[in-house]
């Protein structure tokens, strides 16, 4: 099979899966879940099968058609997108296993709709990952927002619908109000929106306009949750936990920072941005978000909201790393996407497992829970250590690269921010870990054990991945260093 066909198949498969889920859902739940799992595995297999070509320097591409002159729907596999697609599709398998346990144990309604929308969200995520130009990226970006809306408002009670409205309002509002004009501006200036190694804007725009356009892009991509457009992420926490885990720790938010990184690398070009002083504000905005979000996380009582604010801070790591505009930092940005994904999905899985087994959602309720749910809390601990950046976890690797990039650029602000946020991360995660393992349990609490084995299996798997990534990160780094070199042509 040629790589072009593989791309086409990757972009069709989730649709067939969604269709299959609808049909299978008519007959039996088991069949439906089998379709989901099989589909997820097939998708991941297809995505991973593109890897050898990519490593060899190939850039398979697929053009669907031209909508307007210069405005085409086209897909192209490159290192950054490959990383995102591999991550999302790979974790979808584990997440599906987890979802089955979670949805059944909590007796959620409308499960077919849930799985269908999940498949559609993955479809949109694949589109985002492989998009070859700004228009395609925008198309899939909007699809991703729309397909996740039913997942966020899954419960359907008034409070949830209100939160879902915030979610949709901020994401659609920023994308139409800021992202779209930025895209049109870019097409207007450069005559194209194709992602090109080295950027397309150099020579078309200069001075303060660069900073303005960058601002439109960065805040327009609301999914990156750079303050002040971060409010949708805590709001999205009303969704069932598997949604928070895969979409709001991996697919959706990563689509945001991924889009920003891609725009910085392939639209502006890092050398051009580095030479333009008016783009310097982005580092400050990201640093501000990291520190502020960490401070807010410190004060959260609800576990999922705490994780949400932690995500906001961690996303800005990626933005900040991309904004350092040095090759090593760009690699760090890509690696951090991956490292954070493993750690954060583990944390969310653990939070969902705690909710399922013990119906506990608040931090202070977790006293002594480690003895009742040792597997879950062990995984939680690994995830939290990765967030802080302690070896031997994945978080250490990415922080290393970001710091290296910061020194390359002599950017002490970045160094200081990373140190400060490490301290803050430790300040909000360590007490939870300590309390869970060593504090005495409150008497007359519910009697419970571990969550269903499917969930425990899933969260153990991601925790292992977090540890494994520390040791086996070579291929990822090698792939991503092609990002700025432009591959072996």
């Amino acid at each position: 099979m040629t790589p072009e066909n593989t791309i086409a198949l990757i972009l069709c498969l989730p649709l067939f899966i969604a269709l299959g889920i609808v049909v299978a859902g008519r007959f039996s739940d088991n069949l439906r879940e089998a379709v989901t799992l099989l589909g997820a595995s097939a998708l991941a297999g297809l995505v991973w099968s593109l890897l050898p070509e990519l490593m060899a320097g190939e850039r398979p591409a697929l053009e669907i058609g031209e909508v307007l002159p210069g405005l085409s729907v086209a897909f192209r596999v490159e290192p950054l997108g490959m990383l995102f697609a591999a991550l999302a599709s790979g974790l979808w398998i584990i997440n599906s296993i987890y979802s089955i346990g979670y949805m059944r144990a909590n007796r959620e309604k409308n499960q077919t709709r849930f799985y269908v929308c999940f498949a559609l969200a993955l479809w949109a995520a694949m589109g985002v990952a492989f998009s070859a130009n700004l228009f395609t990226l925008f198309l899939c970006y909007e699809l991703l927002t729309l397909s996740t809306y039913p997942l966020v408002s899954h419960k359907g009670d008034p409070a949830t619908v209100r939160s879902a409205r915030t979610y949709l309002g901020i994401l659609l509002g920023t994308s139409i109000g800021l992202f779209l004009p930025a895209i049109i501006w870019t097409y207007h200036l450069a005559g194209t929106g194709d992602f090109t190694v080295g950027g397309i804007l150099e020579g078309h725009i200069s001075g303060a306009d660069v900073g303005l356009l960058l601002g439109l892009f960065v805040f327009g991509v609301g999914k990156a949750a750079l303050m002040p457009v971060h409010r949708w992420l805590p709001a999205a926490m009303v969704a069932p936990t598997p949604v928070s885990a895969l979409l709001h720790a991996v697919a959706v938010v990563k689509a945001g920072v991924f889009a920003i990184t891609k725009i910085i690398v392939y639209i502006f070009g890092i050398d051009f941005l580095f030479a333009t002083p008016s783009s310097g504000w982005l580092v400050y905005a990201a640093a501000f978000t990291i520190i502020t979000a960490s401070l807010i996380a410190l004060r959260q009582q609800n576990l999922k909201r705490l994780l949400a604010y932690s995500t906001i801070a961690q996303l800005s790591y990626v933005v900040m790393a991309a904004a350092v505009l040095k090759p090593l930092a760009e690699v760090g940005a890509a690696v951090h996407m991956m490292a954070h994904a493993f750690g954060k999905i583990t944390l969310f899985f653990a939070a969902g497992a705690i909710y399922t087994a013990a119906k506990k959602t608040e931090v202070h309720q977790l006293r002594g829970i480690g003895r009742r749910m040792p597997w879950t809390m062990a995984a939680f601990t690994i995830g939290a250590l990765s967030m802080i950046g302690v070896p031997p976890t994945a978080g250490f690797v990415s922080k290393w690269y970001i710091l290296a990039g910061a020194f390359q650029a002599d950017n002490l602000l970045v160094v200081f921010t990373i140190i400060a946020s490490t301290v803050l991360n430790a300040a909000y995660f360590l007490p939870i870990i300590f309390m869970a393992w060593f504090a005495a349990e409150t008497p007359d609490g519910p009697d419970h054990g571990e969550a269903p084995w499917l969930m425990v299996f899933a969260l153990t798997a991601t925790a292992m991945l977090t540890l494994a990534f520390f040791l086996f990160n070579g291929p990822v780094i090698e792939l991503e260093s092609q990002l700025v070199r432009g591959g072996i042509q």
Partner: protein
Amino acid sequence: MDLTPHLPALQVVVPMLAAPLIVLLKPRGLAWAGATAVAMLSFCIAIAMTIDVLQGKVFTYQMGGWAAPYGIELSVDAFSAVLLLVVSGAGALGMLAAHASVDQQIELERQPLFYSAWLLAMAGLIGIVVSADAFNIFVFMEISSLASYVLIAGGPDRRALPSVFKYLIMGTIGATFYLIGVGLVYMMTGTLNLADMEVRIQEVTELNPLLVAAGFITIGLALKAAVFPLHVWLPNAYTHAPHMVTMFLAACGTKVAIYVLIRFDFLVFQSALPGHSTQFASFLMPLAILGIVVASAVAVFEGHLKRLLGTSSVAQIGYIVLGASFLSAAGLSASVTHIFNHALAKGGLFLAVACLACHYRDLRLSQLAGAAKTMPWTAAALVICGLSLIGVPGTAGFISKWLLINAAMAQDNYSVLLVAVILLSSLMAVAYVWRIVETLYFGSTDNVAADGATDIIREAPLPLLLVTWLVALANIGFGFFPQLPISLSSGAASVLLGQLP
């Protein structure tokens, strides 16, 4: 016999002659079938002509063989072709879907009359588009208006009557203003043929009557087109009309008036009146902007589904006028594309409304809560068309917004303001469309008085639903393959701007 040269005439004559015959068909199924066949035939004629127009052909037809400028001339170019497709398409598809909805709203013995009025309205609107004669346009305008008054008043809702009376008064004033303008131009040039007028108007030295004529024609047509703030007749008329009529008129009614407005101003006055372009632009652009912003804002807070969509139409008309007021090829083609795309989106939305109305008598949003559970297909089609109305990429609405914003960016003055207005109103469109979606999918069903239980799937009758989905899919189709409306509209723009230096 080759009928091709006669197509422009047949386009008008077929529905017009069929209309009185339909009345004679007493059994109601037959009346519907006849009217549908005629409407379909007229749609086919429009398609046939569009195919020729796409290859660069311009149809001209001398009625009765009398040569222009003495005889009456019909002509079809790229601009007319867009409108012909919209009018006959809306008429035909509406007719195809209408049966169930009409059964519900119109008494049996009056149905043949209803279908006949539908064909007359269609014939009138088509007549306006194909005429190349200023006075003929007036006559056709009145034919279509009288027929649409009848259609609007035909429903069971008594509030339609005062609404239609208001529409009649304002519509007649608009048409009469147009007539005054045409009279003044005729006085100065001695011709009614538009093409001839274009030539002869160059020789006129006394420009004041022409200036007055331009004013009367612009205002009169703006009234007919419901350009803000002359739109007050529209929301009520759309709200209380029978559902299918609302769909038909929302898709094409006001757009035909805009067509005449653009044609007259660009072809006749532009070249003759010095400074007309600036006057035209500086008069219409603020109105368009105000219309877009105010009507969108009102729609956000509107509680009745049909009135909400009707108010949004006023904003969308603003987009069309805004594009024309740029006076550039890019602006005009954005405008013409939006005529086409908005017809698709709004037509689809009102078709979905007609589906909903099959089970929900009361179309206030509060009464439609949870309707997606009983009518999942209808609700899904409504969401697709709603996304197109917002202008989400991948739908037809995105194409025209993209063109419009690009045209606005190319403007010398106020380009940032114009882009900001378009984006702001898109955001407001998100707000009002999402209110509908949220109600349909996640509204609480506690105080809803639908007939029957709310948790059983009870879809609208199949023909209605199929047509609704056809239009919804067309919204997506033209979002990815917009070559047809775009090539027609750029053709239209070059025809219209041919006169400009």
